[in-house]
């Protein structure tokens, strides 16, 4: 009989107000994670104080980064640490994600039974992500496969997906061994899409409908290019560069052009100022030249 070592990885940056609850929810799982790895992305608020309170907990391991490496860099680092510490599964989430008490157990069970039903290894399992009012969280909807209902008709409570966001996703160790880590160079946005799509080379992912978490976002709204403004421009710049890079280098140039068309329509629909549109166009072009390669974790234990 083999036992499964699960490492939860939480990446945080200046979320001292929510982080404590996120960690408590992970520690209170009815199937506890064997390790809880928290990556502090060089926060400048009271995060250090929050983490100090958890430092003595038996399963908690804190990684303090010297510079902010973005969500992508934080997840890549945390997953590499989990891998080096011998994790068989890595369960990752943001610092504003509250996991329901059975979220991890349901993910593990749902993933195992989906694999048994499909007769193959599946590279990840994600939870259903709710907003604070209990509705579906628009930003974290996975993209289903064409045969998404295959497991449903077999009585499984899971659907097959092509991609998902990094809000409660479980990766088996072999997926990291074979496909490496998320692209730290993306810094933020589309790192989750690129990574989960990369992994689907081995088979579809699965969304386990009985595993649920709450994403405590300010507003429940997905990514929409019509929302670009001076305040959020920096994030959209990363998003456009990263998606253009992904479409061009990992799909085909026509996919990148279709993305450009979608970008143009979204910006025009939101009447985004031309100076911002021009900056995003430059980012799209930058994406064509931008093609980072994945790093692979090192086997230690």
């Amino acid at each position, binding site marked *: 009989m*083999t036992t499964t070592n699960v490492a939860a990885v939480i990446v945080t940056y200046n979320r001292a107000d929510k982080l404590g609850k996120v960690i408590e929810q992970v520690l209170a799982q009815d199937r506890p994670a064997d390790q809880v790895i928290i990556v502090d992305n060089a926060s400048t608020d009271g995060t250090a104080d929050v983490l100090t309170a958890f430092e003595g907990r038996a399963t908690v391991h804190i990684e303090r980064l010297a510079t902010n490496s973005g969500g992508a860099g934080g997840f890549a680092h945390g997953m590499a640490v989990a891998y*080096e510490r011998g994790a068989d599964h890595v369960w990752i989430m943001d610092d504003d994600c509250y996991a329901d008490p059975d979220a991890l157990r349901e993910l593990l069970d749902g993933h195992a039974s989906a694999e048994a039903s499909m007769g193959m290894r599946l590279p990840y399992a994600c939870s259903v992500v709710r907003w604070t009012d209990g509705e579906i969280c628009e930003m974290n909807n996975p993209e289903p496969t064409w045969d998404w209902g295959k497991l449903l008709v077999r009585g499984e409570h899971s659907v097959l997906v092509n991609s998902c966001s990094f809000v409660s996703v479980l990766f088996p*160790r072999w997926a990291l*061994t074979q496909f490496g880590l998320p692209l730290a160079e993306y810094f933020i946005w589309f790192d989750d899409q690129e990574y989960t799509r990369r992994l689907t080379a081995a088979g579809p992912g699965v969304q386990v409908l009985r595993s649920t978490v709450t994403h405590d976002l300010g507003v429940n709204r997905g990514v929409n290019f019509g929302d670009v403004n001076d305040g959020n421009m920096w994030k959209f710049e990363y998003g456009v560069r990263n998606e253009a890079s992904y479409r061009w280098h990992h799909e085909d140039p026509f996919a990148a052009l279709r993305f450009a068309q979608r970008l143009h329509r979204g910006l025009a629909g939101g009447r985004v100022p031309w100076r911002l549109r021009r900056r995003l166009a430059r980012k799209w072009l930058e994406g064509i030249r931008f093609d980072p390669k994945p790093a692979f974790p090192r*086997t*230690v*234990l």
Partner: protein
Amino acid sequence: MTDPHDQTGARRVFEILQEPDWFSGLSPREARLLDGGLAFHCLARPGERIRATVLRTDGPHLPSLTDHRTQRIEWADDRRVVGTIEAHATGTPVPTTGVVDVVLDLGGPPGSLMRLELPPGRVHAVRSVVRGRAPVVFDVLRQLRTDRLENRRLSRPIPRVGRADVTSAGSSRGSTKAVLFGLHWLELGGAEKWAAETIGMARAAGLFPIVVSDRPSGHPDIARPVFDDALVIPLTHPVPAEHESRVLSQLFERFDIRGVHVHHCTWLYQRLPWIRAQYPGTELVDSLHVLEWRTGGFVDIALRMSNVMDQHHVISPQLRDYLVDQQGLPREKVSLATLADLTVDPSGQRAEPVSTRKAGDPMTVAFVGRFTQQKRPYLFLRLAARLRARLGDRVRFIVHGDGELASEVRADHARLGLAGSVQLRGTDQPVAQTLDEADVLVISSDNEGVTLTSFEADAHGVLVVSSDVGSQASVVLPELLLPRAPLPFLRAAEDVLVSLCEDAERAAHLLVEQRGKVDAFADLPRARDWTRYLYERWAS
């Protein structure tokens, strides 16, 4: 003098009708090689009398005990006849007529075989000259080729033998419970050290050890006490095809072989599908040590045979990840159990992780290992030359070992002007003494599993600096891991060692961290426990 025959298990398969006078003149090694050869021929021809002409030589020639040459009654001019001997298989009627003649060549003394150089041929000669004269350039090219072969190998699926669906009881069995072991050779090496350990454990569990080896060698370790009372058959190839199945089936008919444990033995691996088909009740397991990126080595042979095998024991997390994650073997079929306690008892007495180097003392940097291409002693010597130029008398070196590159190491030592600063030590001196004197151990290998010397070094309070190969990352600190490619290795090693020499406080801190890392590795399941449990089950 005790008859060497009395100490082996060979008497279980043959009898010597009349022991000749010359027999006591054989060394224990030669006597056991002869036993192995006779055992093979008696098993291959049950019921027949085997008349052996026994040869030896002073030259660098390997034994010939089971191959087709044993059936020819002519031999090379430099062989001397030691004598003749007649044996017959036990438990079978001895015919009054009919004698099968074989010629058993015990080969040259082990000392001459150690220097056995590359195979003949112009290409090998050129290769040898280039390697001797420009070892670093040779190594740069070699590593580039390794990278290319590694990428190519990983991009292709490894073929697998078909599953065996045979569930019948199989052929008849003997009564003495036994384990059939497959070894590479009976020479020094990490895998062989572990194999010898398991042979002792089988005996302790009440299982009779039968050992076949398949690699040409003088088998210097065959006379070790661990092989006492074992039936050892050192195969020499090519074994005549008709004898292969006969020898194996005779072994299964005379003994109740509960399990086959393969330790790096290609010949036995390749016969596992047949064994599974003929003797399906026998459990088939192996122990795997190192992934060879150029060819896949034994790990890929094990993968090919995995469908007919029950368990793979791996000694490093890297191998587990390769077999389970990369190659998709079921996790429960791969058992990680380490050799952390094979040469060092982690619960026993170990030096405190405290540097004994006082301020102003020179830092002692050691190389411990066989002088082979894999261990790259020439890189260590070049590193010593660089450090000597940079740090002068603040650093001294010990190179401890022997092996096929010994003459090149000595030539390099002289050529690089290292006589005053690099002390060469042979294998006649204890490794413990070198580690007691050393502050840092450098492992410059281009491939490893997990080096046992890393554990020994840590137990002596010595920091380990190593190339980042195999599972070395499991026991060596990340800041002390170096690139595999030779030039980056030399640059990085130079920087690391200079920093350790100049910052004793950092070195002391790293030593404490290293102990923590070694202890975390030692907490993984142990190979001894895994094997003991397995053999007790086989013996029950």
